[in-house]
């Protein structure tokens, strides 16, 4: 009986020596972030043992800390997925910096800017609306929308309208133009955010063109040929087109010379004004004051140290101040030079 007990004990001891225990004792508990599968060890590093047998020390340390991490994983609730035990990790507690930069805020469109300025707020509208004729809910916009005026089987001809005009085609055209206008505005918004030039489109169609609009339309039409209107003939009594690009303007070559000179002198006077002029004397005085203050503070905090250094320290302080003041005097002599140097 005693043999049996001894055997079992011996076997257990052998096993224990073969496999290390899962228990690890640390002076300071580790910070374990199971969500990130990460531990951080704040225990002091044993420099002595690491020097004598560095490899073994590091391996043991790594093993112990990993054991602690695994221990905490085993405490988590587990699931059995396809005969594999899976632990459910909690949310990570250590914030980790994101890989990519924070996305830039989307630039406002022209309408959004205007709405913000005027304090217009969007009302949420439902996507589906009740359609009376079909007695069902239909989308507010897009395919198969409710109240689609291009899909009606009968259209009344307005009293003022031309009786031969196709009212169905008119509605379809109007819809197409609205779509085109929207697309153009979208592209303009993109161009504005990219700070590229917004392309001009000449003229967009209107219902009631004004006189000015017609003038513009005429000049656009005239220049819309392969030769940019070079060979377009003028109508009799036609006025010169106003709707044209701007030309650079320079001052007259032989103008009033005195005005030109005074203008240039003005520019010369304003030349160095945006550059801050460094006042050397003031900067040096500030620096000296700062130094004295810090020295006084040091003395107050550590009077012994100051007393020890008293003899040499005080003399050196005066010496430094004296040289500084000497330098300042020199600096004043060359002050003009320094200023003009700053104006460059």
């Amino acid at each position, binding site marked *: 009986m005693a043999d049996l007990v001894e055997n079992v004990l011996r076997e257990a001891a052998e096993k224990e020596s073969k496999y290390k225990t899962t228990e690890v004792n640390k002076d300071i508990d580790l910070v374990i972030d199971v969500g990130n599968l990460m531990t951080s060890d704040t225990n002091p590093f044993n420099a002595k043992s690491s020097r004598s047998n560095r490899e073994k020390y590091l391996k043991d340390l790594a093993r112990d800390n990993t054991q602690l991490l695994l221990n905490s994983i085993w405490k988590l609730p587990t699931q059995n997925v396809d005969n594999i035990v899976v632990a459910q990790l909690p949310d990570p507690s250590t914030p980790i910096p994101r890989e990519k930069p924070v996305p830039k805020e989307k630039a406002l469109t022209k309408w959004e800017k205007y709405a913000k300025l005027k304090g217009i707020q969007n009302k949420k509208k439902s996507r589906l609306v009740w359609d009376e004729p079909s007695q069902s809910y239909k989308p507010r916009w897009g395919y198969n929308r409710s109240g689609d005026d291009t899909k009606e089987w009968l259209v009344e001809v307005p009293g003022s309208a031309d009786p031969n005009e196709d009212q169905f085609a008119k509605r379809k055209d109007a819809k197409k133009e609205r779509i085109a206008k929207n697309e153009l505005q979208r592209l303009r918004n993109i161009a504005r955010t990219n700070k590229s030039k917004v392309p001009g489109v000449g003229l967009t169609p209107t219902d009631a063109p004004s006189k000015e609009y017609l003038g513009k339309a005429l000049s656009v039409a005239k220049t819309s040929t392969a030769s940019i209107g070079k060979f377009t003939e003028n109508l009799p009594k036609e006025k010169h087109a106003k709707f044209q690009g701007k030309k650079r303007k*320079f*001052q*007259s*070559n*032989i*103008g009033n*010379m*005195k005005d*030109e*000179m005074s203008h*240039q*002198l003005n*520019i*010369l006077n304003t*030349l*160095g004004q945006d550059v801050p002029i460094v006042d050397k004397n003031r900067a040096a005085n500030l620096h000296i004051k700062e130094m004295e203050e810090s020295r006084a503070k040091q003395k107050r905090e550590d009077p012994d140290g100051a007393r020890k250094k008293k003899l040499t320290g005080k003399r050196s302080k005066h010496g430094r101040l004296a040289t500084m003041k000497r330098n300042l005097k020199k600096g004043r*002599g*060359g002050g003009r*030079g*320094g200023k*003009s*140097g700053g*104006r*460059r």
Partner: protein
Amino acid sequence: MRPLTEEETRTFFEKLSKYIGENIKLLLDRPDGSYCFRLHKDRVYYVHEELMKRAASVSAPNLLSFGTCFGKFTKTQKFRLHVTALDYLAPYAKYKVWLKASAEQQFLYGHHVMKSGLGRITENTPQYQGIIVYSMADVPLGFGVAAKSTQECRHTDPMTLVVFHQADIGEYIRNEQELT
């Protein structure tokens, strides 16, 4: 040919003031006649009013030069001084450096000036200040930029550069075709 725009005047005066400071006023307001700056083919010319009016009668492609060329605007709208401006920079120079006779030729061949070639330098020259280069006989040789301030010059070894070369009168021979 046309007067400089405000922007151009500003860049031009900024560059010029690095060499002669406020003395630009003396170029603009002269007792001996009315002088002006004119732009022609990206080059700035300093010219008497009378001569400018005469030159204006020549068509732009045919007009090669008139008055004194001060320099040119680069395609990025910076201004470069040419050696032809030296005649007007030298009398009004704020900072000067005099070269030893041995260093004169090196400078006139387009090299920078080393400490060993430095004869004299104006007191209190700051670093990177525009500076006119003279020979010991007070002949203006060109201009450049101070690589070291006067204080630093005293303690550097003889092989360090003290003036960066920008233009020298040797260019009248070397770059005859480009100068107008």
